[in-house]
């Protein structure tokens, strides 16, 4: 019998995602996919399938149980509080959930999205080649909708997971930047130099009215030179769109493929994860970079991801002296985080 991942509790914003539904953008089909693709990849790489699916959860958190068998899970995201029964685990870790056990993932000091990738595959249908949920159009994931308490995700083709919890080390995880880098455009000529200067000098507060579709920014009003309606054109992940009310909207994973407002700038790929992990109430700032600088950052991140994740044993207070001794003998550096 295969094991089933049971959702015991789910806050709003939990869904099944994979790297996204690509190849249908010209038919109006949004790719969806993870809000923080880097954190998602840390989880799926650790779970042994970079192309696999996982559960994305948000500030509302998630509680899970395994039924009918044990389930290996890799967890990574913003700095969430991860507990296996009473035991605190690192925010990025792999662990095994056994029947009778309970895993809880809750928002902690920072971060807005967390990913749980199974050592195995969800027994869900591929929709246009993808498991990604786009709830607005009812596509993908579990019945095209967000996850809720009581849902069951059957795991097939299980892969072996480490017996003891391990910490995931992924150098690109949680890379914080004081300022998010943007490239101006595609429609910066709809704005005066002063307005662009305001975009780049203001502290922007992330609004509570932010979701997978767009992050709304609160701050100074950004006025268009003339008119806010443009003939719709393509819209990229990270595009900063300025609607008629002058309050910037950054288009995120669930954006529409096209948009009808001028896009003053676009957050570069390397910084989309950091933006996604900002929470309502957090402040973000922007700095403009060139295409070359953006690509240099993209290359550095790609090389880092190519090197993959490493797993380290989790040091815990109840470890035996023998274990600690053995660990030092093999030359590992003892991580004091969990002591």
């Amino acid at each position: 019998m295969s094991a089933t991942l049971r959702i015991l509790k789910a806050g709003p914003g939990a869904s099944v995602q994979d790297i996204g539904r690509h190849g249908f953008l010209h038919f109006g089909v949004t790719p969806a996919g993870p809000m923080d693709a880097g954190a998602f990849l840390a989880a799926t790489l650790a779970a042994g399938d970079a192309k696999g699916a996982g559960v994305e959860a948000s500030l509302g958190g998630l509680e899970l149980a395994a039924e009918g068998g044990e389930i290996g899970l890799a967890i990574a995201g913003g700095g969430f509080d991860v507990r296996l029964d009473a035991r605190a685990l690192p925010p990025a870790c792999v662990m095994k959930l056994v029947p009778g056990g309970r895993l809880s993932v809750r928002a902690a000091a920072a971060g807005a999205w967390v990913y749980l990738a199974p050592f195995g595959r969800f027994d869900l249908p591929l929709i246009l080649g993808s498991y990604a949920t786009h709830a607005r159009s009812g596509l993908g994931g579990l019945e095209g909708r967000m996850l809720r308490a009581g849902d069951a995700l059957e795991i097939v083709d299980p892969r072996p997971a480490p017996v003891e919890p391990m910490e995931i080390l992924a150098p690109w995880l949680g890379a914080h930047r004081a300022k998010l880098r943007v490239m101006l455009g595609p429609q910066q000529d709809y704005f005066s130099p002063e307005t662009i200067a305001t975009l780049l000098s203001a502290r922007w507060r992330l609004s509570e009215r932010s979701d997978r579709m767009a992050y709304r920014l609160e701050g100074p009003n950004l006025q268009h030179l003339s008119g806010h309606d443009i003939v719709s054109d393509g819209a990229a992940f990270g595009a900063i769109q300025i609607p008629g009310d002058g309050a910037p909207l950054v288009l995120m994973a669930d954006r529409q493929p096209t948009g009808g407002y001028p896009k003053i700038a676009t957050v570069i790929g390397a910084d989309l994860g950091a933006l996604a992990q900002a929470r309502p109430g957090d402040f973000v700032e922007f700095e403009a970079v060139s295409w070359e600088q953006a690509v240099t950052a993209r290359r550095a991140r790609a090389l880092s991801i190519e090197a993959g994740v490493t797993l380290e044993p989790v040091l815990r207070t109840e470890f035996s002296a023998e274990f600690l001794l053995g660990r030092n003998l093999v030359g590992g550096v003892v991580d004091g985080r969990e002591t």
Partner: protein
Amino acid sequence: MAPSRLRAAGMSAPRYLDAGEAALSVEFGDSVDPQINARVLALDAALREAKLAGIEELVPTYRALMIHYEPLTILRDELVKALESLVLQGASAFAPKARWHVPCCYDPALAEDIVEAARVLGLTPERLAALHASGSYRAYMYGFAPGWCYLGGLPPSLASPRRASPRGPTPPGAVLIGGGLSLIAANPMPTGWYVIGRTPERLFALEREPALLIEPGDAVRFEPIDAATFFALEARGGIIAKREVLAKREVLA
């Protein structure tokens, strides 16, 4: 140089606008115009044909082609260089591959807003239906939601202002007018346009292969059907044979 060759051919050079480091918008104009859209669609077709490594998605819109690409595979300059030779062929290179004959019922019982739209336009509902069915359309682009296909070619007398406030979710297969365009809306969504017809065809049906029918650039005509035919076709397309395509696809040379 490519720009001078474009000028010699009577065409303006497109603008290459970065949308971040991994997307480039090739903008041919700033209005909804069949000639501008033909250049967009010609480049879309040429680029799909060219199969350049690093091109991930192409999204044609009314007046621009959005190219999502991987800059670690193809540099922006290499991409623009390839585009500069492809745009030389201009709008005349655009030719629709197919013409779809889409059944459409204009009966007010199904076409929820046709009476209201006719009043706004100063026409009778029958005249509005006849004019709409006489149009020769082109799929300009998809946008807004999966299978929402925006059509150019609406007879000018049917150009309408947007509704003052959006109407509720469209029925499945809604045929709408708004501004100077028509639209076939696969999935129910609220809209500021008028529902002036309904097709039993499903532009987006996951259980069917292909799931999506009309390609951007395809020609579209509407074939009026009465309500009884609508329900009969809907039963065939929706329940009895889910994989059946109701609209006729005429291959164009």
